[in-house]
């Protein structure tokens, strides 16, 4: 039997693309499928996935869990666990379309959940932490079950295959969201496991990432001090945990977190105005072990926004573009032109400089 993601380290090259309509108007997942199709050669058919925001307006108060099950036993065990910790508002198998190019799919289920009030109160945890810990427990303790999406009013859809095939498999043309991201994977090893595909998500954070970070083990060993378990051994996983730690647990802004992860060089900081110099020096002194080196481009999705970030040397391609209310981020300009040939503006963000696109009414809860 081939090894699963998490049992080995699996560097990958990739394609990433994202779109947001800042007015909050929704669009189907079709655009992302078309965009990723243009970048077909940046993937190798061993992983594709999407994240959509605003896709569950009727259940937006509830945590939407998406799960892969290897079999009915894992499902029964998981549902018993979920039942002990949450009220299950609605659950169903996720509707898919059979495609010859998408094989060996696991059982794929969706649950809308609310934490049981008494359990939550007894845990003395903040609600999001409670949910995050439940996700971690299912993933770590129940063999054959894997939660791959756990945010409110958002969802991740992923699997083994080319992203355009995975998008059609999940019938993403039937979902409507104000923001989407997509990932096509080019792993240098055979994962064969659907949980190993990207985006990687934790609560409403989702990350698509292209790169192979050289700081991986320094970052991993540091972040694991704070209760995270990097079970998948992927860059995307550790970057997600870093952002979750800095933003959710430590209360940094996304911009501050970006300046930790892709900190400016000391020589660059020295040339900045006094206030920025002080701020960036302090961030580097407080969180030096969360500096991420080596090539990466990422799109962080969250409730109400997308953030694009390149490593500080810009060792991976990434462009941003705008057209009216819509903003685009992509590994290649061609993918954006495929869905919007006539752009108001297109630019390549500098390494280490985050680009944030949020709903006009504001991002995050």
């Amino acid at each position: 039997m081939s090894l699963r993601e998490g049992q080995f380290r699996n560097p990958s090259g990739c394609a990433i693309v994202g779109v947001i309509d800042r007015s909050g108007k929704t669009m189907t997942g079709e655009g992302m499928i078309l965009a990723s199709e243009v970048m077909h050669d940046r993937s190798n058919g061993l992983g594709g996935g999407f994240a959509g925001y605003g896709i569950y307006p009727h259940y937006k108060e509830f945590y939407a869990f998406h799960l892969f099950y290897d079999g009915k036993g894992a499902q029964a065990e998981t549902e018993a666990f979920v039942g002990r910790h949450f009220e299950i508002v609605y659950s169903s198998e996720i509707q898919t379309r059979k495609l010859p190019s998408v094989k060996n799919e696991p059982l794929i289920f969706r649950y809308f959940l609310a934490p049981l009030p008494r359990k939550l109160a007894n845990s003395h945890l903040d609600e999001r932490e409670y949910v995050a810990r439940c996700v971690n427990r299912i993933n770590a303790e129940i063999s054959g079950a894997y939660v791959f999406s756990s945010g409110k009013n958002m969802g991740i859809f992923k699997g083994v295959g080319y992203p355009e095939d995975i998008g059609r498999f999940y019938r993403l043309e039937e979902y409507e969201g104000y923001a989407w991201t997509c990932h096509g994977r080019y792993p240098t090893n055979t994962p064969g496991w659907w949980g190993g595909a990207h985006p990687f998500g934790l609560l409403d954070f989702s990350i698509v990432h292209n790169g192979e970070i050289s700081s991986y083990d320094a970052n991993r060993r540091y972040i694991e001090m704070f209760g995270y378990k990097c079970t998948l051994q992927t860059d995307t996983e550790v970057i997600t945990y870093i952002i979750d730690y800095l933003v959710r647990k430590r209360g940094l802004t996304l911009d501050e977190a970006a300046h930790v992860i892709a900190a400016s060089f000391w020589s660059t900081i020295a040339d900045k105005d006094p206030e920025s110099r002080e701020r960036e020096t302090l961030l580097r002194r407080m969180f030096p072990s969360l500096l991420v080196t080596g090539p990466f481009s990422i799109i962080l999705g969250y409730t109400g926004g997308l953030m694009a970030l390149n490593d500080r040397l810009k060792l991976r391609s990434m462009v941003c573009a705008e057209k009216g209310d819509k903003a685009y981020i992509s590994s290649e300009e061609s993918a954006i032109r495929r869905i919007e040939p006539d752009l108001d503006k297109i630019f390549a963000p500098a390494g280490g400089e985050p680009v944030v696109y949020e709903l006009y009414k504001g991002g995050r809860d």
Partner: protein
Amino acid sequence: MDMYIQPDYEVVRNTDRCIACRVCERQCANLVHSYDPDTGKMKADSSLCVNCHRCVCLCPTHALKIVKTDDTYKINANWSNQTINEVYRQANTGGVLLSSMGNPKEYPVYWDKMLVNASQVTNPPIDPLREPMETQLWLGKRSAPVERDEKGRLKNTLAPQLKLKVPILFSAMSYGSISYNAHESLARAAQELGTYYNTGEGGLHKDFYKYGANTIVQVASGRFGVHKDYLETAAAIEIKMGQGAKPGIGGHLPGAKISADVSETRMIPQGVDAISPAPHHDIYSIEDLRQLVYSLKEATDYKKPVFVKIAAVHNCAAIASGIARSGADVIAIDGFRGGTGAAPTRIRDNVGIPIELALAQVDERLRAEGIRDDVSIVVGGSIRSSADVVKAIALGADACYIGTAALLALGCHLCRSCHAGKCNWGIATQRPDLVKRLNPDIGYKRLVNLVTAWNHEIQEMMGGMGINSVEALRGNRLMLRGVGLTDTELSVLGIKYAGQSV
């Protein structure tokens, strides 16, 4: 001399080359060389030779060499010549054997059994000649609350830290064990390099207060030279609990090395042996250490980081955990190969553990307990090259102390006779005629050269790994692989075997 003991090394003179200029005679404080006016030739008494190579280096006609003697006792795999000689020596004197510098025995050197990674294809190596390659770092506590001012800007809640431009510091060597000129060389080099040197337990000479911003002052069990100005002048204070060369015992500076100047600096009588106790007599347990840490912080208004230095011993991971919770900002760990100006031979050669294993375990333990951010880790004993520095940082160190390598840069030839006080290189001596042989203008420059060269090499290796900040190398153990190690050694080091993917 002991009639039983024959010299280990022989002075060999090429009489065709020798011009009897008598440089060797003048240079040798051990009085090996002499001129025979009857024959007009130079003579040598090899039994006095410590093999410091001073005469060899200065001979203008390259007429001298020192060779290992081929005189031997009957070969015995159990009783080596040295072991037998040591018995003879002790039978003659009734004394404890003394040695200097680091453990020379054939124990495994784990640095040499670890190999470093490099990038190929899936991510690019980075060229330090063309891109920034950061070796700057800050030492100290990093755990600090995120707080904001009324405008929402982050407040600096960090405890004091030390800024290092290179991940290398000069380790503790006292004035007394080494010379004024050696100290001046270290202080000036530290200043120029943007790093620190360490006074050791010998106090700080009044001439060197001006280098305070690059000085770590030591508070050791003898409290030699400790007073208010001493603490206030320093950039940081180091509590010395132990030393890698002699874990479990205190220091010993022979009276012969206690000159008037050393006496004044140490605040002890001239010419009398300075023996610091094995323990701090106010520290018999971890809670006592905490009190000393905070006493020193109180005395300096919480403006300076406090280091606690321990020898690498079997239980160092647990000890380090205690230190990390004692208010210390930096833990310095000294491996069993670390140098010394004088130590009992049996202790130097048999007590303590390799720094590589101690470091790996301390770093792992502090992470397992979630307190790695409460302290920085500095390791020494012995770091011999930039490759050792890279491997130490990848195992989990923040920075490295170098002592022996620094002395080598000043001319030391590792003759391991510091305790005799007759260092021909002007380093480990207080004899004015010998001290002046070390020119601090040249000495400091050689130290700067050494560390600068190492820093370039560190940058090259980091670039090869695709890492452009030393902070992203710290604890990055996937960048290391072992060769020739057992499963137990690999697991203690927390690394994979060469060829193993993850």
